[in-house]
């Protein structure tokens, strides 16, 4: 414990000294740092901060030092995060490299792969994207068709991937491809790494109903992938993918989880839009008020359930069955909140752009539309319910 407190003191001092003042306070740039070859910092000090943190291993605190990480224990990493929050410092680097492919390579990669890929991730030099879903595949991920033909020392890739977030900004992709078309669906799949600058790789962004989006479609036309870039074993990609996918679902749920700080907002927003609701006291539209209560109550119930799961984890218990509900409950709750916000705003919720709408009203429209995708991406609500019925409740197929 004494060691940890020493660590806390040193870390705090280092952070406070090293983080440029331009990145702190009111005027700090809002744009997050994703790194990569195409990255243009919103402010030059973002690069300074990134380099200093990378140098000390603070972009990937728990990774081994030899691969560019900080080699910190879990407790130390927690303290680092606490001190970052306390000082209100921006994260030096975000991205799929740190949260998805990095941990995957640590678990399944060869030493060569770790040495090649992890340090550039830690330094923010290479940005990664994910190539899982395919046009037409939908929830049936294992039915993927992108073909990798064995040509001796390399594979020839043909096919396309959809929902590849920020593929137009990324340098490398980790992708699932079919290496054995004869095998049973999940058994002929391989997990591959590929440089996006490889000839034959192209990207086009996807327009959503809510407008522009980070999603892309990524095409492979006779793109060469080297055999050394296979992760784990050929035709065993499903094992790697499952580990990674579980990780993604947890992240998605966390994103919808807290509802913190939003408690007053619904009622406040109602006061803004309901005639005669400026004063304190009960909102004049009693049924709208009741719907606000329902969303608030369910948000609180969900937050308490997430807390229950975290408390159990902290106490060293196995994750309980309650964790299987996070994705479906979190996303459907967010949709209900968005629908309610639309009903609260009334005609002012109908703006798309320009004249007659406040900018937060225009945001509202877009985020309502965007929220409809929450119950589709990262495993549809239908799939989630299938999984609960089968794995948790033991109902037969």
């Amino acid at each position, binding site marked *: 414990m004494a060691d940890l407190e020493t660590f806390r003191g040193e870390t705090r001092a280092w952070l406070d000294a090293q983080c440029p003042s331009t990145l702190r306070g009111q005027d700090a740039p809002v744009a997050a740092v994703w790194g990569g070859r195409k990255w243009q910092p919103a402010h030059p000090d973002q690069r300074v901060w990134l380099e200093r943190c990378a140098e000390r291993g603070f972009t990937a605190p728990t990774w081994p030092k030899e691969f560019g990480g900080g080699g910190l224990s879990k407790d130390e990493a927690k303290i680092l995060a606490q001190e970052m929050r306390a000082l209100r410092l921006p994260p030096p680097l975000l991205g799929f490299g740190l949260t998805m492919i990095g941990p995957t390579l640590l678990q399944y990669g060869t030493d060569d792969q770790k040495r090649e890929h992890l340090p550039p991730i830690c330094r923010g030099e290479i940005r990664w994207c994910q190539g899982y879903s395919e046009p037409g595949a939908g929830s*049936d991920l294992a039915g993927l068709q992108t073909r990798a033909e064995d040509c001796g020392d390399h594979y020839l890739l043909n096919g396309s991937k959809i929902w590849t977030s920020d593929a137009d900004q990324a340098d490398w992709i980790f992708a699932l491809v079919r290496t054995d078309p004869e095998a049973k669906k999940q058994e002929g799949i391989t997990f591959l790494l590929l440089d996006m600058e490889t000839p034959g790789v192209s990207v086009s962004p996807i327009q959503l*109903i809510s407008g522009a989006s980070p999603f892309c479609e990524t095409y492979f036309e006779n793109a060469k992938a080297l055999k050394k870039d296979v992760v784990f074993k050929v035709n065993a990609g499903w094992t790697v993918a499952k580990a990674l996918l579980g990780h993604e679902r947890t992240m998605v749920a966390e994103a919808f989880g807290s509802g913190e700080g939003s408690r007053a907002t619904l009622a406040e927003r109602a006061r803004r839009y309901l005639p005669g609701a400026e004063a304190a006291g009960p909102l004049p539209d009693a049924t709208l008020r009741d719907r606000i209560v329902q969303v608030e109550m369910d948000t609180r119930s969900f937050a308490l359930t997430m807390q229950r799961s975290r408390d159990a984890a902290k106490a060293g218990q196995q994750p309980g069955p309650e964790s299987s509900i996070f994705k479906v409950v979190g996303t459907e709750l967010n949709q209900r909140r968005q629908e309610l916000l639309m009903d609260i705003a009334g*005609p002012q919720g109908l703006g798309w752009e320009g004249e007659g709408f406040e900018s937060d009203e225009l945001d509202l429209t877009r985020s309502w539309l965007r929220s409809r995708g929450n119950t589709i991406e990262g495993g*549809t609500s239908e799939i989630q319910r299938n999984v609960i019925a089968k794995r948790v409740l033991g109902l037969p197929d």
Partner: protein
Amino acid sequence: MELILTEDQELIAKTAADFAAERSPVARVRELRDGRDATGFSRDLWKEMADLGWVGIPFAEAHGGADLGLAELALVLEALGRTLAPEPFLSTVLLGGGALAAQGSAEQQEQWLPGVVSGDKLLALAYQGPESRYDLAVTGATARREGDEWVLDGEKIQVLDGHVADALLVSARSSGSEGETEGISLFLVPKDRAGLEIVRQIRVDHRNAAGVRLSGVRVGADEVLGAIDGAGAILEQVVDRATVGLCAEMLGGMQQAFDLTLEHLKSREQFGEVIGTFQALKHRAADIFIEIELARSVVMAAARAADEGASDLRQLVSLAKVRCGDAYVHVTNEGVQMYGGVGMTDEYDIGFYMKRARAAQLTFGDSSHHRDRWAKLGGY
């Protein structure tokens, strides 16, 4: 009232359905949007619809109309709702034209209605201000007498097709306080009148609307519609009729969204099976079917009640609005969900229906507003 179609009505429905499919596919809406078309609909197509007699359906034969009812107009709107046609039926025929037909003097009607029926003139009703929400008695504008004239000031929002209307019918408070039914007057203001500022608004459903600012706009005594201070009840009647029209459009839209979804359920494969075999989706599809069948009945009933002047017309209008609004939103939300990822892309049509559903639900009073109205009319 009989809830069936006559042979004549069947014919109108069939003609309109064929026209919508051939001349007005959803692709047209997409083109108008992507091309940032200044009008936002097709004047040529509008003229064609007028030539087919649809624009004139509810107007008197003396003005070139067919002197038919909402029951007939609803069939046209249902067919056009299937393909999201943005032509100005609600604004020009039911709101503006409806107010003129109900309360206009012989001269006013003669001046405007033949042009409306022929498809040459467009009208709009500027009835809601920034604070109105769904209360027609909150006008957002004032009218003050000066000699023989009236001077209008105030602001109106989301005036349907206000950006292209040749004249606006403007509600304004001439006496009393906002919120009271008494003391509201209606004025006919030509689009080029001094002090009238009209700015187009871009809505999520790609329908056309405008914000309107009135700054000392002067109108003559001959431009007052009906009795001074007496427009409150008229406004409710006119908007009620337009609401029935909107419900018919919603009925067509939800039916088409469901047809698209069913098609998807029958063709899309997942895990080696057509997804329409999954029982959970089947049951949800059955629920949607139920919603639409109920919606169809209430739309038919509300249109007929309007044509027959039934005593429970207002209840039926509120019933139709709640049923259609909730059903359209439900059907399209489910449609996007069942389409999955592609349903979220702009490339597929289903999203257009979802946007329209929400906008339609929040037009002329949302479900909560109309349930409250139903209870009030029922005395509880």
